[in-house]
């Protein structure tokens, strides 16, 4: 995942992507929680959850296609148990809660039940939608886990601008448990999320998990964090790099040998290569795609405008590459 991320940043610099939102530093929180999900569970990501997407079987090229501007995501949320990325902060927490209320009504809560998870950031905890989601989930005892990746920054605003109490403590006021987990410890994230999901699926209601982590990169490729944060802070968190930590753990406990790490490196080289070629060879959508999938039923406005635009486009045919004039 880290390799996909660094390739994507390079592709953005080369003009192949319009934007990239790096997950650097948040891999443990995402892979740990993502691996805790069962197949039939449903995840509602924000826009940085590439690691969770990976766990849900979304190919990196589908993420790249969105950030290239070739699609709006486009994977089938039902097929993957992974909703589309949601950019308008906080919106998806309510969708997750409503989906969980549906799960309840389907009688799908129980020993082998279905759980729902909503991802969002520390900044998102300020948004009305997020707080309304907490309340709806609590009042309905909905089978949903709120997974907040507290990476300590919302673009340029540090956590203090969003919350005077630790985020996990917000849950108490809404009437459900909140836990903080070391978000750079992949096994802790796995264990805590699994327990929270199991609570939800067996009818014990929502949990807020605060994964305490750090955004090691810029907010997006458009951002310049040197304008608002100290290098010392970054250096401190670099030493807690989640991938470094899992590697140390595996080595210290004799759980992986040199050959394993070499194999991982080789695999990530292969993934990197695939990502690059797939991205560069991605075709642009056809102009008339603009009119697709706006309504379920035929629509006179759309039909008329599509027809007019098709005529307009064909008026340029044979007029040379620059258009009609």
């Amino acid at each position, binding site marked *: 995942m880290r390799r996909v991320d660094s390739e994507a940043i390079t592709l953005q610099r080369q003009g192949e992507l319009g*934007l990239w939102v790096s997950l650097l530093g948040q891999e443990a929180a995402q892979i740990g929680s993502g691996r805790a999900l069962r197949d039939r569970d449903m995840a509602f990501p924000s826009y940085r959850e590439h690691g969770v997407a990976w766990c849900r079987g979304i190919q990196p090229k589908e993420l790249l296609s969105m950030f290239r*501007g070739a699609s709006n995501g486009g994977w089938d949320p039902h097929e993957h148990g992974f909703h589309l990325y949601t*950019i308008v902060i906080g919106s998806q927490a309510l969708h997750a809660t409503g989906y969980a209320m549906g799960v309840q009504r389907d009688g799908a809560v129980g020993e082998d039940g279905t759980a729902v998870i909503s991802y969002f950031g520390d900044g998102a905890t300020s948004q009305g939608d997020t707080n309304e989601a907490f309340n709806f989930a609590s009042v309905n005892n909905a089978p949903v886990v709120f997974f907040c990746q507290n990476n300590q920054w919302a673009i340029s*605003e540090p956590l203090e601008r969003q919350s005077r109490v630790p985020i996990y403590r917000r849950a108490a006021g809404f009437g459900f448990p909140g836990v903080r987990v070391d978000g750079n410890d992949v096994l802790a994230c796995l264990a805590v999320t699994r327990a929270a999901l199991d609570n939800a699926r067996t009818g014990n209601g929502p949990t807020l998990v605060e994964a305490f982590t750090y955004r090691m990169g810029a907010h997006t490729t458009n951002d310049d964090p040197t304008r*608002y944060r100290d290098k010392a802070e970054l250096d401190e968190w670099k030493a807690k790099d989640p991938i470094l930590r899992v590697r140390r753990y595996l080595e210290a406990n004799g759980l992986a040998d040199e050959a394993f790490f070499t194999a991982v490196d080789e695999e990530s080289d292969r993934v990197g290569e695939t990502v690059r070629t797939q991205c560069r060879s991605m075709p*642009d959508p056809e102009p008339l*795609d*603009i009119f697709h999938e706006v309504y379920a039923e035929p629509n006179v406005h759309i039909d008329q*405008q599509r027809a007019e635009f098709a005529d307009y486009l064909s008026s340029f045919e044979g007029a040379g590459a620059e258009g009609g004039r």
Partner: protein
Amino acid sequence: MGTNLTIGKAINAGLRAAMEHDPKVLMMGEDVGRLGGVFRVTDGLYKDFGADRVIDTPLAESGIVGTAIGMAMRGYRPVVEIQFDGFFFPAANQTFTQLAKMRRRSAGKLAMPVVMRIPYGGGIGAVEHHSESPEAYFQHTAGLRVVTVANPEDAYWMIQQAIRSDDPVIFLEPKRRYYEKTEVDTEASIHEVTPLGSARVARPGTDCTLLAYGPMVKTALQAAEADTDHSIEVIDVRSLSPVDYPTITASVKRTGRLVVAHEATLTGGPGAEIAARVTEECFYHLESPVIRVAAFDTPYPQSRLEEHYLPDLDRVLDGVDRAFAY
């Protein structure tokens, strides 16, 4: 005396002038402080005016507009920044049910001198929700003034006029034109520059009136240049609520034709309202129906399609041709 400024820098300079002029003026929004906003429009203000007057708010648009209303009741003149057009919507309730109606509800006892700055429009290759043109929602709402700028001079003066207005002003900033640069007369008097509610003839002509505002003014001027067969008058609408109809109808009565171009979607867009009004007032002068050139009635598409979606030079010229087909 002139200074060369981009639209973004001119708004910044205008904000600074307003803050210097009136200690009650303050900035609120996400990342407007230390960062100076994602487009740097509030750059330097936090450093010079401090955290009390340049407020990095929690990430909540309804909260931003709602607290700005309270600040206004307490005598302040908040200038709120909505980071991108697509993120206005969480603040829709506070804007439409509270901000717009407060004067009327309080029988004039409460003024709402709130300015809402919104970078808007497409053409920057962005992901979803960063390229919207929501002006029709605002124009449709009684109690709001809606203005938009197309050049640095207007950017500098109109932001200051908006801040001095006792009505809530939606101030739309054409984000893809932030970096357009021209000379700005910063020494003029705010009382002598073009009033906030006036349209401006950007290029005189005799055969057809072409209306545009915000990011489309430049495109309209290019179209007028490109059409060597006709003399096209370009009007920069500047204020979408109220609309300066006297300037527009005077032009249409001379030219007999009107084309309105905007990035907002066609149906129920500002062009529809202007077309209806001009038809009522200029019916006997019109040589052709009023033609609208707008975005299609679909959600803003992924960025690899936006060049087809946004009305460009060719689409505007096609609109002009349609007007001359009558």
